[in-house]
């Protein structure tokens, strides 16, 4: 008997799901596709961030996972600023308990203030935002409702809360607020969990990890370990006491289920008026925490059909967005994962459960060979359908040795939404930036030049920051909303905005969270196609107040204050 016979029988026995990679294959749509046009203006416009991530021979997992980026208006000048989180140096042999320190300005987190001409100036030192430790993620929210966006930065060994002083500077209030935490924190989200009008803070943690020198792979091809090698850990949830302090309440709220959490997104998936939480876990079941409305949560990922893929397999959940991509009023989910796993797309079935739609939307075929981290739904062509942009790159810097078809460095991906039915890869036609191979990690969206076309900022692991200006050639119109809560939290985070155009309704849940370790513009944006006016707007505030507007002219950002009732 020769090995050949065995081989043939093995091929015959191969089952769907137990096999290896693949390639893009979705059918081209019948509809005309609008490609995007994105241009990286970072270095020419003063953004010269270079992420520091030492890659050591010991392959400490930490070094390949970060870091994130934020887009927010720090000084209230109406222009978005950029904040990149950065790593820190460490040697080859690192004793347990070590917290790397930013020993040189090149390790600082960097804050770039946008000037009126659209260029950026480095305000890091002036703003007091250089940071400490080995930074990971960032979450932006006005936790004290003073009208100025505050910043929470996660890291290994302790996180930092920076209070916005209102003049372009920040004060580290971590100790007073009591939100320092511990362990390896990743993504974080600001959300008012109990409806008291103050943003609470949900901080994910990845794994129980402390510079363990564990050898994975082979001696001549050592690589970053599979997360199975490490134990899971609970997230931290800080209840905002409304006086500048917080109380850690994960256990009390039922949110202390141990996971290997990397990505977080917030939406009211069952439309019961209470924000729910999705947590993307790495290589274990994903979590969907349903807000029971009584101040506690119940994890329902498996029952809801979002814990595993359509075949019941777990995947390496990383970045996530929780938004209504098919304009039916119910938030859907997309989760980035590693190559061979297909990004997970779950359509909300309107009954508390979801359908795994990666195959029927074509997203599975488009993403099968890719590894997705930061991602957001974004209507880049303002046609009224939320498209998807993804920062990509494998976590293993040696992946090509074992899998020649997979890549550590990958171009970002842009998927065009074909009326909520299919996603079509338009990357190759959407600008040179989608040809460049990056080690994509963080991704934040926002309209940097306030032209109604949403721009994107991407951070790399061990690489430069990228500022992708949206120059898509479209005659479509748009509208944006900056909510100002009064009874609700001032950012209006958690509010659901419904607009009606001649093409039908659209919904948007206000959030700065989603993506991977990143924080996006708090303003809500809608593409409204050929319409110049929005027929009606309905805003459901977190307080329960419902506000209506009629015949609202488009092509502008509208500040909407929460009414008294």
């Amino acid at each position, binding site marked *: 008997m020769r090995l*050949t016979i065995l081989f043939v029988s093995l091929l015959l026995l191969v089952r769907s799901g137990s096999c290896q990679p693949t390639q893009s294959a979705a059918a081209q749509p019948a509809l005309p596709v609008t490609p995007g046009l994105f241009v990286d203006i970072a270095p020419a416009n003063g953004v010269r961030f270079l992420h520091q991530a030492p890659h050591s021979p010991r392959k400490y997992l930490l070094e390949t996972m970060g870091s994130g980026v934020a887009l927010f208006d720090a000084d209230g000048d109406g222009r978005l600023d950029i904040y990149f989180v950065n790593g820190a140096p460490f040697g080859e042999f690192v004793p347990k308990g070590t917290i790397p320190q930013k020993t040189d300005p090149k390790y600082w987190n960097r804050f770039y203030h946008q000037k009126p001409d659209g260029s950026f100036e480095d305000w890091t030192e002036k703003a007091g935002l250089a940071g400490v430790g080995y930074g990971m993620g960032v979450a932006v929210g006005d936790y004290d409702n003073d009208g100025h966006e505050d910043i929470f930065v996660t890291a290994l060994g302790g996180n930092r809360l920076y209070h916005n002083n209102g003049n372009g500077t920040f004060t580290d209030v971590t100790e007073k607020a009591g939100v320092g935490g511990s362990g390896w924190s990743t993504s974080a989200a600001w959300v008012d969990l109990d409806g008291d009008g103050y943003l609470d803070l949900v901080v994910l943690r990845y794994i129980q990890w402390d510079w363990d020198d564990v050898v*994975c792979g082979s001696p001549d091809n050592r*690589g970053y370990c*599979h997360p199975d090698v490490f134990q899971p850990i609970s997230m931290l949830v800080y209840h905002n006491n409304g006086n500048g302090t917080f109380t850690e309440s994960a256990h009390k709220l039922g949110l202390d289920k141990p996971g290997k959490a990397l990505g977080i997104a917030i939406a009211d998936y069952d439309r019961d008026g209470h924000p729910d939480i999705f947590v993307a876990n790495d290589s274990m*079941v994903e979590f969907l925490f349903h807000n029971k409305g009584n101040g506690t949560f119940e994890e329902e990922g498996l029952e809801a059909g979002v814990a595993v893929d359509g075949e*019941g*397999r777990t995947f390496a959940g990383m970045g996530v967005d929780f938004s209504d991509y098919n304009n039916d009023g119910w938030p859907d989910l997309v989760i980035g994962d590693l*190559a061979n796993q297909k990004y997970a797309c779950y359509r909300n079935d309107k009954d508390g459960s979801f359908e795994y739609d990666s195959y029927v939307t074509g997203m*599975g075929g488009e993403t099968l060979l890719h590894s997705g981290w930061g991602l957001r739904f974004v209507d880049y062509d303002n046609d009224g359908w939320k498209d998807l942009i993804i920062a990509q790159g494998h976590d*293993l810097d040696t992946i090509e040795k074992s899998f020649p078809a997979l890549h550590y460095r990958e171009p970002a991906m842009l998927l065009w939404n074909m009326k909520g039915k299919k996603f079509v890869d338009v990357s190759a036609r959407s600008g040179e930036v989608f040809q460049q191979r990056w080690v994509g990690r963080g991704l934040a969206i926002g309209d940097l030049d306030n032209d109604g076309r949403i721009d994107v900022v991407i951070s790399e692991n061990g690489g430069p920051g990228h500022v992708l200006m949206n120059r898509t050639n479209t005659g479509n119109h748009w509208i944006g909303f900056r909510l100002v809560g009064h009874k609700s939290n001032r950012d209006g985070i958690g509010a659901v905005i419904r607009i009606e155009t001649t093409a039908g309704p659209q919904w948007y849940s206000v959030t700065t969270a989603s993506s991977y370790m990143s924080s996006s513009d708090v303003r809500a944006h809608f593409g409204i196609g050929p319409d110049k006016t929005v027929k009606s707007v309905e805003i459901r505030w977190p307080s329960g107040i419902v506000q209506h507007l009629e015949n609202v002219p488009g092509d502008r950002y509208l500040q909407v204050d929460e009414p008294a009732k």
Partner: protein
Amino acid sequence: MRILSLQKSLPVLWLCIAALAAAQSTPSLQDGITLMQQGRVAEARTIFESILERDPENQQAREQEVVAIERQALEQRGGNHMVEALQTLMDGQKAVPSSARLAYDTGILEDEMQLYPEAARSLQTAQQLHMDDPMLLYAMARVQMDAGQLDKAAQTMQQYLQQRPGDASAHFGLGRIYQIGLQFDKASAEFHESIRLQPAQSEAWYQLGDIALKQQQFDEALTDFSHTLERNPHHGGALAGCGEALFREKQYDKALDFLDRAIADAPDYQTGHYYRGLTLARLGRKEESERELATAAALADAENRKSSTRYQLTVPNPQ
């Protein structure tokens, strides 16, 4: 003088005696073959290698040595001693350096060990050694498929099919390559061709059902799976597939029936457990559902570990 002469001639004599003994005890090729028949493969290899040492061009010895190496490697592989099996094949290539077969076998084993670049190199070596067997193309396609080079894999399998167009298993294999690449139309065509060539099979129907399921064409999936079940009523995948299709059509009682059978026939198939857990939840059997979903999650984790491109722990080295 005589003593001296005897002293001088003694070593010569001993040498003559030793040579005679050696000639008389030198095992023959037939001895090696006999040992092989007795299952004493390692001893047989010693004989073949000693013959080859004396006569490197001895074709019969070369062939027997290759057969012995293959058998030894297969035994090691059967005992799950993969590294040892690979070592045997690699040592064998040194003993019989121009053996295309051994290079081919090495490639197949390396593929199984997920050493894809190495497997590709070994099969390339076999090709360079003029291995004249279409199965080499088949093997190359498999390695390319496993390494995620699906375009290449499809091309290679098509080359194989040009030589053996009537090979139903190759059409099935090409279908799998397309299916993994989510090129469902092409995959379906190949599976149908495989069925046309070899109607008495269940697996291509199963894959067709799986494709229909992924495209949410549930009636078609049920039809395809029923073809599988006609030939193999205990096909866990097809039973689970029927269960999943019926679950998605919200026919929970019927779904549960299939899923119960699926789990009975394939207790480790996580998809069956997962949909059974979901179905039980829809039927209001919450505790059973939770148990089943926990089982599904555990199986899913195990599957994730197995299929991951990431590295597992090899040497624990706590500080």
